């Protein structure tokens, strides 16, 4: 018997793996020490656990543990990377290059820096959500200090040509940051091979706990530094003060260790399930895949069901937890800016659903989801005036819609 509701919103967050949870529990009740306490066994034990976890965390991205700055999550890592570089390298330049489909933690941090005098170039993506390395090459100027391009997009799963971008940045002596929140633990990421100088990631997208993440800061070729954004006890090599979240860090480490061991087999299994789901749903009339078909995370798909509104559709598939690019609230009638940046019509953006599979997703759940979504789309189209017009051959663009 299948357990409902089914969770297919794993790009938002993942369930903590029970093995991760088990690893964390002693650090709540018994080994609760402060990793910065040098004078007693409680502190030593905590420090030892953190050191071990830091090795695990570093390993998954091919880094050295000394290059890992623990944070509260990817939003903080992104802020620290951008704002920290802006301050630290002010003498070198003030120009940043990023992409229009980045996460808000990047875009809003850039907007903040613009107020402080930064010059930011926001590059557009193609219809498939991909950025071209040549676009970045053309945007680099003598005062460019940082290029920030996400590894894989949170809404589409599209994977950017990070290795090529990294090589380009290295060639031009520009720092390269990547928000790899969606990628780490899902696909191989190697900071050396990819020429990455700064990398943000977080535990809760890879079956670890919420509230803990990391920023990789390269120590060699070149040695990179960021100005701390929080003043205090000088933890994390002075780049991020604050008592270490020992339980979280232990969980993050374990999550990385498991992901390293299982990523390959898990990715292959999820790709098969994702493709099954995707192919079945794309069988429907007027259903479209958003984002590049190949350069994509194995567990994510984003599909627009034309003439059906996303939020209405989610209500119709209440046994399946997903997320939509449509926001139908009076506060925001704007659909997803990521989808709009692909050049999608607003109506298609309003009709999109993102499915994110996980380590815990079963084939039965995918079969159930296929049926559930297909039925709901068909039902809603029967009550959609736009579907009726489409079926009658009326061009929706020819209609003068009332202001709204």
């Amino acid at each position, binding site marked *: 018997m299948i357990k409902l509701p089914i969770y297919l919103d794993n790009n938002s967050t993942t369930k903590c793996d029970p093995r991760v949870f088990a690893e964390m529990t002693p650090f709540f009740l018994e080994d609760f020490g402060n990793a910065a306490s040098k004078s007693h066994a409680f502190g030593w034990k905590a420090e030892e656990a953190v050191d071990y976890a830091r090795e695990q965390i570093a390993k998954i991205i091919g880094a050295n543990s000394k290059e890992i700055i623990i944070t509260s999550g990817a939003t903080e890592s992104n802020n620290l990377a951008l704002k920290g570089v802006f301050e630290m390298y002010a003498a070198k330049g003030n120009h940043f290059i990023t992409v229009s489909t980045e996460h808000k933690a990047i875009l809003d941090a850039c907007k903040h820096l613009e107020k402080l005098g930064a010059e930011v170039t926001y590059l557009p993506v193609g219809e498939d959500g991909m950025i071209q390395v040549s676009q970045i090459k053309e945007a680099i100027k003598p005062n460019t200090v940082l290029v920030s391009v996400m590894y894989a997009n949170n809404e589409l799963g599209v994977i950017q040509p990070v290795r090529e971008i990294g090589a380009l940045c290295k060639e031009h002596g520009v720092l390269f940051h990547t928000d790899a929140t969606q990628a780490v633990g899902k696909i191989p990421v190697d900071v050396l091979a990819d020429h990455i100088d700064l990398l943000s990631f977080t535990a809760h997208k890879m079956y670890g706990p919420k509230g803990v993440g990391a920023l990789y800061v390269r120590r060699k070729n070149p040695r990179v530094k960021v100005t701390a954004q929080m003043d205090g006890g000088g933890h994390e090599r002075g780049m991020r003060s604050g008592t270490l979240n020992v339980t979280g860090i232990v969980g993050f480490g374990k999550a990385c260790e498991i992901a390293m061991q299982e990523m390959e087999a898990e990715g292959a299994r999820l790709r098969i399930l994702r493709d099954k789901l995707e192919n079945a749903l794309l069988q429907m009339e007027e259903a479209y895949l958003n984002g590049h078909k190949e350069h994509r995370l194995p567990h994510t798909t984003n599909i627009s069901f034309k003439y059906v509104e996303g939020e*209405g559709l989610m209500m*119709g598939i209440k046994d399946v937890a997903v997320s939509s690019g449509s926001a*139908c609230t*009076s506060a925001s009638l704007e659909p997803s800016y990521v989808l709009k940046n692909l050049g999608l*019509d*607003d109506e298609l953006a309003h009709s999109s659903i993102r499915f994110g599979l996980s380590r815990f997703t079963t084939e039965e759940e995918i079969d159930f989801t296929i049926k559930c979504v297909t039925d709901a789309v068909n039902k809603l189209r029967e009550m*959609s005036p736009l579907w009726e017009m489409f079926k009658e051959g009326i061009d929706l663009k020819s209609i003068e819609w009332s202001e709204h």
Partner: protein
Amino acid sequence: MAYSEKVIDHYTNPRNIGTLDKASAQVGTGLVGAPECGDVMRLQIQVGENGIIEEAKFKTFGCGSAIASSSLATEWLKGKTIDQALEIDNMEIVEELALPPVKIHCSVLAEDAIKAAINDYRVKNGLEPLELEKSHH
């Protein structure tokens, strides 16, 4: 956000989905909203010789609250005179469906759809269209 039971009921069992003959002089059609805003409602009324709305149908592209608002509107319209129908206020829909503040625009759209349908009917029957208040969204 959680939906009210009444919204869920109208969404799950929508009343009066369908299409009336928009060419008929007896039928008034209101099409409001826009695809790029994420909601479009088409509401139709069929008025009898006695001036009473004898049939009402809708089709809606939108969220659950938009679907429920238009479904409820068709229920309320049947059996009313045009004048009575014009009195339907969006806030009554908000109350009946317990719509949260972020969904009030769905009820506004339903009220607009009613008025647009009535105007279409009036124009077809040689009457002046009513001056409509500019909707509040």
